[in-house]
């Protein structure tokens, strides 16, 4: 076994230790906290590189996979193992998480510089990284679930980092509870899987639950409605992924989660945690795809994968359409993330692990870039998040603008030069070839159009035109007008420091370059993950199917970009209060989109009302039924106690008290004999002696 496999546990444990050390330190050790967190991630990245190197060079002879397991807990006669696995999927995720995490940590040093809870922030960040890396290396659904819950917890802590804001506290609660619904499904799936196969290890030399033996057993067992057990377990596990990855209908928490600090949004709600759900599906892909009919393009079709595809496709278009009508810079990105996660799910469903994972990796980089870029914008605009109050930032923040443009073009899928194009194209390509239905493909294409459109809208509103942030200040009063003019320069947006821009530039580089590892001409990524042979073949690019689709997707992107530029770029809004162009044209649809299809309101009216009713019912039962029973017991006890008291007082104590009183009086009487005069005693002794002598004399005579 290679040393890196044995020591893979170091990667999550390093940030865990960093979090621990930061947590026990005294408060104002900012430098130490940042160094520890960033250092642990950098070391983790180096180790990940070693792990990655170990997995390279195995094309053609199957997938490289080494596991290390050891028994942990004993249940009755059975041992629960935990352990880790090193395969291409793990290695690629490890590199992504540690590298993006490290850059975001560095960015946070600048972004959180003025926050007084700097230490707490880095402690949570490091803990989060530990949980996420634990998810990635786990070779066991149990360890996976534990790490998954650590991730959920830290997500809660970080969303609610500014807990003094009621909205942040509520958002944290919402995120926690919503993902909990999905986690329940995951837990049920986990238990069922254990009951069915007797193991939770993914790979275990032929005995693991993702290997052929266990899969065959699960396939033959049928359950409700004739479905195979494997399908049911797959769907339950997918429910966990739905919660974590913000798929419809559990997507509601993700946009609200933007209440957290921006680096958190970038780290958790763009690059890593939400990708954990996608990663989960990719990890248990053998379970999802078992028994499927192999389609024309070598992709299996099963019930689970069909469900995943549909959920993903609906999420992709649904969230993309909402993003069109949002005005908060981070909320637009949040809905964009939900939409892109939908693409990933769809990619897993229609094209297998490599397709979905490729988009996950590229998305992690450019979405982290966009979020950090928006953080830089927010920081520069004095904590302003409303895009209507920005504008013209191109002039003030040239570096941020340049990298943001790269991220935006990557997300929109600008042809050939940006990673998003290649990964999204691969998903659309697979969806096009999907034998079950064509609708996901069409939904995906429409989503791509929306994506290009809303990103153009955002960039046009934020970076072009003229700055609208002063409007409010000068509108406050004319008397202060002259004064506000003189102090305007300090209110102007400013470029962020290097500690924030350098990570952005690095991320921008990757947002461009990463695309080239998975082009149709050189599908290295696909070959790496599946272990299949591949070669450089430029002619594949010009195959009629591929080329046509690429052209179509390019046309879609250009339409979106053009439409966005035409509506928002060419004719800039003049004031903050001005109506949106779409709102003016289609007020009803705009209202619907702006309010996110009223999903929150629908939940409020149904699920939450039901929940409130159930709570009321429980309260009623508690107060009157169980409370009544308790009260009855109380009265019986009190009655008995009263009876006991009477018996005690009037029967037991009475006799005892009388005895005691008599004894006391007797003692008092006798004590009177003690006069304290020695001569009296002597007299008594004399009299007694005389009496004794008389008695002795008379006694002898008698």
């Amino acid at each position, binding site marked *: 076994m290679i040393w890196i496999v044995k020591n893979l546990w170091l990667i999550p444990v390093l940030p865990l230790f960093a979090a621990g050390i930061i947590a026990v330190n005294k408060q104002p050790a900012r430098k130490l906290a940042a160094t520890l967190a960033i250092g642990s991630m950098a070391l983790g990245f180096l180790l990940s590189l070693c792990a990655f190197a170990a997995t390279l060079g195995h094309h053609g002879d199957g997938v490289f996979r080494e596991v290390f397991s050891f028994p942990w807990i004993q249940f009755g006669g059975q041992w629960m193992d935990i352990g880790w696995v090193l395969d291409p999927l793990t290695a690629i995720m490890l590199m992504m998480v540690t590298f993006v995490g490290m850059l975001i940590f560095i960015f946070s040093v600048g972004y959180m510089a003025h926050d007084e809870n700097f230490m707490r922030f880095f402690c949570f960040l490091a803990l989060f990284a530990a949980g996420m890396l634990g998810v990635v290396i786990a070779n066991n659904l149990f360890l996976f679930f534990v790490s998954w819950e650590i991730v959920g917890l830290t997500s809660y802590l970080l969303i609610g980092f500014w807990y003094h804001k009621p909205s942040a506290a509520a958002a944290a609660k919402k995120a926690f509870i919503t993902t909990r619904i999905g986690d329940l499904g995951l837990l049920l799936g986990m238990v069922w899987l254990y009951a069915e196969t007797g193991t939770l290890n993914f790979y275990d030399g032929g005995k693991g639950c993702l290997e052929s033996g266990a899969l065959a057993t699960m396939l033959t067992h049928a359950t409700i409605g004739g479905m195979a057990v494997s399908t049911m377990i797959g769907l339950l596990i997918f429910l966990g992924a739905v919660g974590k990855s913000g798929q419809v209908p559990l997507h509601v928490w993700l946009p609200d989660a933007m209440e957290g600090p921006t680096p958190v949004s970038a780290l958790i709600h763009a690059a890593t945690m939400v990708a954990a759900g996608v990663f989960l599906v990719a990890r248990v892909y053998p379970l999802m795809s078992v028994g499927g009919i192999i389609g024309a393009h070598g992709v299996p079709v099963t019930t689970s994968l069909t469900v995943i595809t549909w959920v993903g496709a609906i999420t992709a278009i649904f969230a993309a359409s909402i993003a069109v009508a949002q005005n908060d810079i981070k909320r637009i990105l949040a809905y964009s993330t939900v939409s892109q996660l939908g693409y990933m799910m769809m990619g897993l469903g229609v094209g297998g692990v490599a397709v979905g994972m490729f988009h996950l990796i590229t998305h992690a980089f450019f979405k982290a870039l966009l979020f950090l870029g928006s953080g830089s914008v927010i920081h520069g605009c004095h904590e302003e998040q409303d895009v209507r109050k920005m504008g013209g930032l191109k002039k003030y923040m040239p570096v941020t603008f340049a990298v943001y443009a790269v991220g935006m073009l990557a997300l929109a899928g600008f042809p050939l030069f940006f990673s998003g194009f290649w990964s999204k194209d691969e998903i659309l390509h697979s969806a096009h070839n999907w034998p079950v239905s064509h609708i996901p493909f069409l939904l995906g294409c429409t989503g791509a159009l929306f994506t290009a459109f809303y990103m153009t809208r955002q960039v046009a509103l934020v970076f072009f035109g003229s700055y609208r942030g002063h409007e409010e200040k000068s509108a406050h009063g004319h008397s202060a007008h002259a004064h506000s003019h003189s102090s305007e320069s300090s209110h102007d947006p400013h470029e962020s420091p290097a500690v924030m821009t350098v990570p952005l530039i690095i991320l921008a580089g990757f947002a461009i370059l990463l695309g080239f590892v998975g082009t149709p001409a050189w599908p290295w990524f696909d070959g790496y993950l599946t272990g299949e042979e591949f070669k450089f073949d430029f002619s594949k690019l010009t195959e009629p199917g591929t080329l046509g689709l690429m052209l179509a997707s390019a046309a879609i992107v250009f339409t979106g970009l053009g439409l966005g530029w035409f509506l928002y770029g060419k004719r800039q809004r003049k004031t903050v209060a001005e109506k949106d162009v779409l709102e003016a044209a289609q007020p009803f649809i705009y209202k619907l989109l702006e309010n996110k299809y009223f999903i929150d309101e629908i939940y409020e009216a149904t699920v939450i009302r039901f929940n409130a009713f159930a709570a009321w019912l429980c309260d009623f039962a508690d107060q009157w039924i169980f409370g009544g029973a308790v009260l009855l017991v109380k009265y019986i006890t009190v009655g008995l106690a009263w009876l006991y008291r009477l018996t005690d007082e009037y029967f037991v104590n009475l006799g005892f008290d009388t005895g005691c009183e008599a004894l006391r009086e007797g003692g008092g009487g*006798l*004590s*009177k*004999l*003690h*006069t304290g*005069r*020695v*001569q009296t005693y*002597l007299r008594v002794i004399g009299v007694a002696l005389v009496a004794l002598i008389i008695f002795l004399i008379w006694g002898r005579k008698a």
Partner: protein
Amino acid sequence: MTPLQGCLLVSALLFAIGFAGAVTRRHAILALVGIELMLNAANLNFIAFWRYGAHPEALTGVMFVIFSIAIAAAEAAVGLALIIAIYRHKKTSNLDEVKELKG
């Protein structure tokens, strides 16, 4: 009346006088004098029973009495010291007023 009877009569008289003094006197030193008288009555008995007893040549009675006198001297010293201590403490040597042990 034999000499022994005479001696016993004197010693009984002496004991009765001493006892009456110890019991009736208010003054602590006079009570102590009474006690000494009683002690000497006992010593007289020792001498009388030895002198007129079965073995007058054995000197046993004299030995007893010398020890008894020595102990009486020590006892008198302790008694006087107690009386002085009580006097210092209570500014009186009247035995009727010394009754701390009253129950």
